[in-house]
C-alpha cells in the first residue's frame, strides 16, 4: 500500500514538474515567435483561417503532407483543375510561413503556366500567382520581404522579360488592366506634369461621405446609380468608352457610338460639361479605391516612386516590379526611398530602371475585337536615364566608400554601369540628342574612368565603333535603337532634310533586318512587319508627338504629312483624319488642303 502511494506521489510530482516547465517555456517561446501584431490582427479578421488552424487538430500535419503530395502529383500528371484551390488551402493551413506562399505562387506563375497552351490559360496561372501573393500572402504577412521580392520578380522577369514565348500576352493583359484603371500618362516630356496628373488619385478621399464633402454633387452620383453605374470598374468602363478624355478614350476611328437609350444617357453623363468637375473627382476616387482594394497598391508610395525615379507609366510591368521591390524594403525593414539602393534590392531596382529607359514609352492601341489584347509598341524613355545613372552612382559610392575611387575593383557595378551608359550614349546620339549623349559619354570617361581605346574616340566615332562591335543587340536595345533612328529620320523629314531622313531610315531598317535575321526567327520574339511598325510610329508622331519627345506645330505636321510617300499617306490617313481635323478646326486651318486625302 505504502509503495503504491509512494509511486503515485512521485508520478504526481513528476507531472507537476513537467507541466510547470512547459508553462515556463510559453513566455520565451512566444517572444521568439516571428508573429507580429499586424499578422495576428490580419489573421483575427479571417475566421476561416483561424478555423483551419484549429479544426483539423492533430491531423493538420498529415493533412498538409497529403495536400502537398497530391498537389505535386496532379501537377506532374498535367491536371490543374484543382491546383489553385489546393494551393489556397495549403497556404491557409500555414498562413504564417512565407516560404509556402512564395513557393506556390512561383509554382503557379512559372511552372503550371508553361504547361498550358492557350494565352488565356497562361495568363490565368500567372495572374493566379500574383493574386496569391498580393491579395492573400501579403495580407497575412504584411512585413515579409520574401513575398514582396517574389511578387516583384514575377513582374520583372516573368512578365517583363522575353524568355516565355507568351511574354507579350502578359504585357498586353497587364497593360489592358492598367489602361482601364489609370489610362495613359499625359503626352508630355515634363515629369512634373505626369506627377501632377497622378496627384488627384493620391489626394482623393477614402470614402463616399468625404467625396460628397468635397463638393461632388449628389445629383451626379444619383444619376450614375440610376444608370446602373457603381463607383467601381463599371464607372471606369463607361468613362473610358464615352468620355472625351484623350488619355483613356479609344481613338476616334475605333469609338463605338452609344447604341441604346441607356448608353446615350450614360454617354451624356460622361461628356456633359455640367458634370466635368464631379466626374474628375469621382474618377480620382474610383481609381484610388480600386488601386487600394483590388490591386492592393498604395497611391502615396506610387507617387513617391514617380517623384524619385521618373514618370512611371503604370501600364508597363517594370513600374510594378519597381513598386513591389521597393515597397517590400519599406514595409519589412522600414527603409525609406533614400535608403533603398541597388544593393539591397536584389538589383530589381536597377533592372527595372534600365528596362524603363529602353521601353518606358508605351504606345497603347486598343483592340476592339479582343479588348484583352491591345496593340503595344515601346519606345525609349530618356527621362529614366538620369535616375538610373544616379542609382548606379549611389550604389557604387556605397561599395567603394565615401573616399574611394569609382574605378576601384571593389566597385563590381562599374562594368554594368559603363555598358548601360554606352548603350544610352548610342541611343541618344542616334535619336538626335547629341548634348545629352556627350554628357553621359563624359561620365563614362571621367567619372567611371573606362579603360580601352574606344573610350578615347570622339563621340561620333565612339558610337560608330560601338555599333560595329555590338553585332546583334538585345531585344530591348534593338527596339530602343529602332525608335531612336525613326525619331531622327522623321524629325529630319519634318525639317525638310531628305538626306538625313534617308540615312536614319536606312539605319532603322538595318537594325530591324539584323534583328529579324538573328533573333526574330524565334516565334516569341518575331517582330511585326517593318511597314506596320513604321506606320504606327508615324501615327504617334502626328497625333501624340510629345510622347516621342518632339514638339510639332500643326503646320509642321502638315508639311511632314505632305512629304510622306503616297503609300504611307494612304496607311496613316484613316487614323489621323478625326483628331487632326478637330485640331485644324481649332486653329482655323483648312484640313482638306493641309492634309489632302491620298489618292486611292
Amino acid at each position: 500500500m505504502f509503495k503504491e502511494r509512494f509511486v503515485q506521489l512521485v508520478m504526481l510530482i513528476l507531472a507537476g514538474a513537467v507541466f510547470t516547465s512547459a508553462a515556463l517555456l510559453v513566455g520565451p517561446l512566444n517572444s521568439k515567435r516571428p508573429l507580429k501584431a499586424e499578422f495576428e490582427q490580419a489573421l483575427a479578421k479571417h475566421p476561416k483561417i483561424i478555423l483551419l488552424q484549429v479544426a483539423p487538430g492533430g491531423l493538420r500535419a498529415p493533412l498538409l503532407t497529403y495536400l502537398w503530395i497530391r498537389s505535386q502529383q496532379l501537377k506532374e500528371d498535367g491536371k490543374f483543375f484543382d491546383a489553385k484551390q489546393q494551393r489556397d488551402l495549403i497556404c491557409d493551413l500555414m498562413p504564417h510561413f512565407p516560404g509556402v506562399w512564395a513557393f506556390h505562387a512561383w509554382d503557379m506563375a512559372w511552372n503550371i503556366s508553361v504547361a498550358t497552351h492557350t494565352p488565356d490559360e497562361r495568363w490565368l496561372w500567372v495572374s493566379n500567382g500574383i493574386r496569391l501573393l498580393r491579395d492573400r500572402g501579403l495580407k497575412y504577412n504584411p512585413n515579409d520581404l520574401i513575398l514582396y521580392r517574389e511578387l516583384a520578380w514575377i513582374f520583372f522577369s516573368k512578365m517583363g522579360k522575353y524568355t516565355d514565348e507568351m511574354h507579350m500576352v502578359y504585357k498586353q493583359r497587364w497593360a489592358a488592366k492598367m489602361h482601364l484603371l489609370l489610362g495613359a500618362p499625359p503626352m508630355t516630356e515634363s515629369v512634373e506634369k505626369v506627377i501632377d496628373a497622378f496627384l488627384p488619385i493620391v489626394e482623393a478621399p477614402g470614402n463616399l461621405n468625404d467625396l460628397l464633402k468635397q463638393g461632388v454633387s449628389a445629383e451626379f452620383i444619383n444619376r450614375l446609380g440610376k444608370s446602373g453605374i457603381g463607383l467601381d470598374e463599371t464607372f471606369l468602363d463607361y468613362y473610358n468608352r464615352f468620355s472625351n478624355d484623350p488619355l483613356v478614350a479609344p481613338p476616334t476611328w475605333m469609338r463605338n457610338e452609344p447604341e441604346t437609350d441607356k448608353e446615350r444617357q450614360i454617354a451624356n453623363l460622361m461628356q456633359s460639361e455640367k458634370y466635368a468637375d464631379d466626374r474628375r473627382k469621382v474618377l480620382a476616387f474610383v481609381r484610388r479605391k480600386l488601386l487600394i482594394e483590388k490591386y492592393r497598391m498604395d497611391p502615396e508610395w506610387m507617387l513617391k516612386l514617380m517623384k524619385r525615379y521618373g514618370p512611371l507609366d503604370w501600364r508597363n510591368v517594370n513600374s510594378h516590379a519597381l513598386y513591389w521591390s521597393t515597397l517590400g524594403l519599406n514595409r519589412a525593414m522600414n527603409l525609406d526611398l533614400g535608403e533603398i539602393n541597388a544593393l539591397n534590392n536584389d538589383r530589381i531596382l536597377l533592372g527595372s530602371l534600365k528596362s524603363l529607359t529602353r521601353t518606358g514609352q508605351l504606345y497603347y492601341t486598343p483592340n476592339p475585337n479582343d479588348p484583352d489584347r491591345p496593340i503595344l509598341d515601346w519606345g525609349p524613355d530618356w527621362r529614366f536615364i538620369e535616375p538610373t545613372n544616379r542609382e548606379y552612382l549611389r550604389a557604387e559610392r556605397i561599395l567603394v566608400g565615401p573616399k574611394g575611387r569609382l574605378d576601384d575593383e571593389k566597385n563590381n557595378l562599374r562594368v554594368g554601369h559603363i555598358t548601360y551608359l554606352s548603350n544610352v550614349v548610342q541611343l541618344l546620339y542616334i535619336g538626335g540628342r547629341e548634348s545629352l549623349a556627350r554628357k553621359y559619354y563624359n561620365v563614362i570617361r571621367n567619372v567611371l574612368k573606362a579603360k580601352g581605346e574606344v573610350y578615347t574616340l570622339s563621340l561620333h566615332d565612339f558610337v560608330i565603333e560601338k555599333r560595329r562591335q555590338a553585332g546583334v543587340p538585345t531585344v530591348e536595345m534593338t527596339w530602343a535603337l529602332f525608335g531612336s533612328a525613326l525619331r531622327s529620320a522623321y524629325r529630319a523629314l519634318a525639317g525638310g532634310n531628305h538626306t538625313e531622313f534617308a540615312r536614319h531610315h536606312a539605319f532603322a531598317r538595318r537594325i530591324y533586318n539584323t534583328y529579324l535575321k538573328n533573333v526574330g526567327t524565334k516565334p516569341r520574339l518575331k517582330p511585326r512587319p517593318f511597314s506596320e511598325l513604321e506606320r504606327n510610329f508615324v501615327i504617334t508622331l502626328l497625333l501624340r508627338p510629345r510622347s516621342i519627345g518632339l514638339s510639332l506645330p500643326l503646320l509642321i505636321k502638315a508639311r511632314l504629312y505632305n512629304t510622306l510617300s503616297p503609300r504611307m499617306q494612304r496607311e496613316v490617313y484613316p487614323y489621323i483624319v478625326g483628331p487632326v481635323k478637330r485640331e485644324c478646326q481649332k486653329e482655323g486651318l483648312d484640313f482638306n488642303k493641309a492634309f489632302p486625302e491620298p489618292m486611292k
Partner: protein
Amino acid sequence: MRNLWAVARETFIQCVRTRIITIFIVLIAGWVFYVGLTVEGDGTLKGKIQTFLAYGTSLTQLFLSLATIFLATGIITRDIRNKHIFTVVTKPIARWQYVLGRWLGVILLDASLLFPTMGVIYLMAEYLRRQPTTYEIKAASAGRSGVVLADPDRLAVENEIFTARAVHQPDPFEINDALQQRWNKLVKERGLDNLIGDYLRKEMQKGSANPPDEMEIERRLRDAALRKKIITKIRKDLRRQIIEETELVRPGSSLRLTFSGLKWKKSMAGRLELRYRLHPFHSYRRTIASIWQVVNPKSGYSQIIPRTDSPNTASSFMIPPQAVTDDGKLTVYYINVPTGREKTIIQVKSNEINLYQQVGSFEGNIFRASLIILARLVFLTAVAVLFGVFLSFPITCLACLLVFSLGMMSGFLFDATRIVPAASPGGFDYFSHYLVRGIFIFIPTFSGTSAVDALVDGVNISWANLLKEYALIISRTDGNSNWLWNSLRFQVETGIGLRSMLALLIGWLIFRRRQVGLAT
C-alpha cells in the same frame, strides 16, 4: 430466404431510425450543393466541373464509408451489448442468416443513399455544363451569340468530361529483328558461355563484398535448365534496352507510334485525346518544342500539331476522328524539334502515352462509378460485421477505420515499400515490402479503379473493370512477378466482392462458435 430478408429489412429500418444517418445525409446533401454552387476550379468551365466531380464524388464516398462503418458496427455490437441478440438467436433464424441479413440491410441502406446522391451529382454536373464558358461570355458581350464552335473550353467539357473514353496504349515497338541482330552480335563477340558466366557473376556479386566463387560459376554453367533461364533473362534485358533506346529521340529525329484496335464508326463524332509526357536529358530547358504528326495512310489524311510543353509533365492534344483508319488504326509521329542551341535528346516512354477514345456515355459511366463505390461499401460492411461479432463497438470502429485507411492509402504504401535494387535495400526494406503486400492479400486496394478519377478524366469504367472489382480475375502473366503463383504463370486478383464474402464467412464462423449467453 424469408428470414434473411426479415433481418435485412429490420436492419434497414433500424439504420434509418438512427440519428447518425440523418447527420450523414445532411452532410452529404450540404456538401454536394455547397461544392456545386461555390466551386471555382482553375477558372475554366472544364476545371470547374472536374473539381466539382472530384470533390463531390470523393467526399460522398468518404461520408458514406464512415456512415457504413458506424452503422454496421453499431448495430451488431449494440445487439450483443444490449443483449438484444438473445431475442434474435432464440428465434428460428440461423446464425448465417443473421450475419448475412445484417450485412445486406446496411448495403441496402448504402445503395438507397448512394444512387440518389450520384443522381444529384449528375444533375449538378449537367447544371454546370450549361453555364457559359469565359469565351462564350466574351462572345456574347461582343454580340456574337449561339454556340461558339472553336471554344477550346467547351470542346474540352464535351470531349473530356461528359463522355466515357477507353484508354489505349501504343502497340509494342517492332524490335524482333533488331533483338535478334543484337543477340547474334553479342554471342559472336563475347561467346554464349562468357555471356552466361558474366550474368552469373553479376548475380552472385549482388550484396556480397567477396568475389564470386569461380568453381561455383563453372558448376552452374553446366546446368542446362539454368542456362536456358539465364538466356531468356539476358534476351529480356536486351529487349528492354532496345525499347529504351527506341524511346530516346535525338534532335531532328522522330518516333513512330501506332495504335490498333480502336473502335471506328462512320458516324464517330468525338475527338481522340493523346496524352504524353516528355523527358528531356537536359533539365535546364523550361519548355520543350515538338511537332506531332497524325497520319491516316489509307485516306491520305495528315495533320501537323506543333507543341510547346513543360518537361516531365503530362500534356495532351486532340486528334480528329478522321485520323483513324477503317480498320481502327492510328499512326502518330513524334518529332524532336531542335530549337537553337537548346538541343537535347527527349525520352518518350511508351507506357506514358495514352490515347483516349470515346466508347460510351457519361450517364452510363456515372452509374458504373456508383457500382464501384458500392463495392467498397460492400467490403467495409463485411469487415464491420466480421469484427462486430466478437469485438466491442470502439475496437470494431477502429479496426474498420484502419482497414479503410489502408485501402485508401494502398497506392502510396505500395510505392513507398517498393524494392529499388539500386538503393541497396536492407532487411527492413524487404520486411516492409512483403508486409504491405501480405496485408493487401486480404484488404482490397481502394485506389485501383478509382471512380473519382474515371469521372474527372472521362475514362470509361468497363464492365470488365467492374467484374474485377467484385469478383475473381485470373490472368496469364509472363512469370516474372513475385507472387506465389509465379511458377504457374498465372496472376490471381481477388475482387472486393470475393473478399467481402471471405470476411462474412469468417465472421459467420466466429459468430457460430461464439457463446452469446450462458444459461444458469
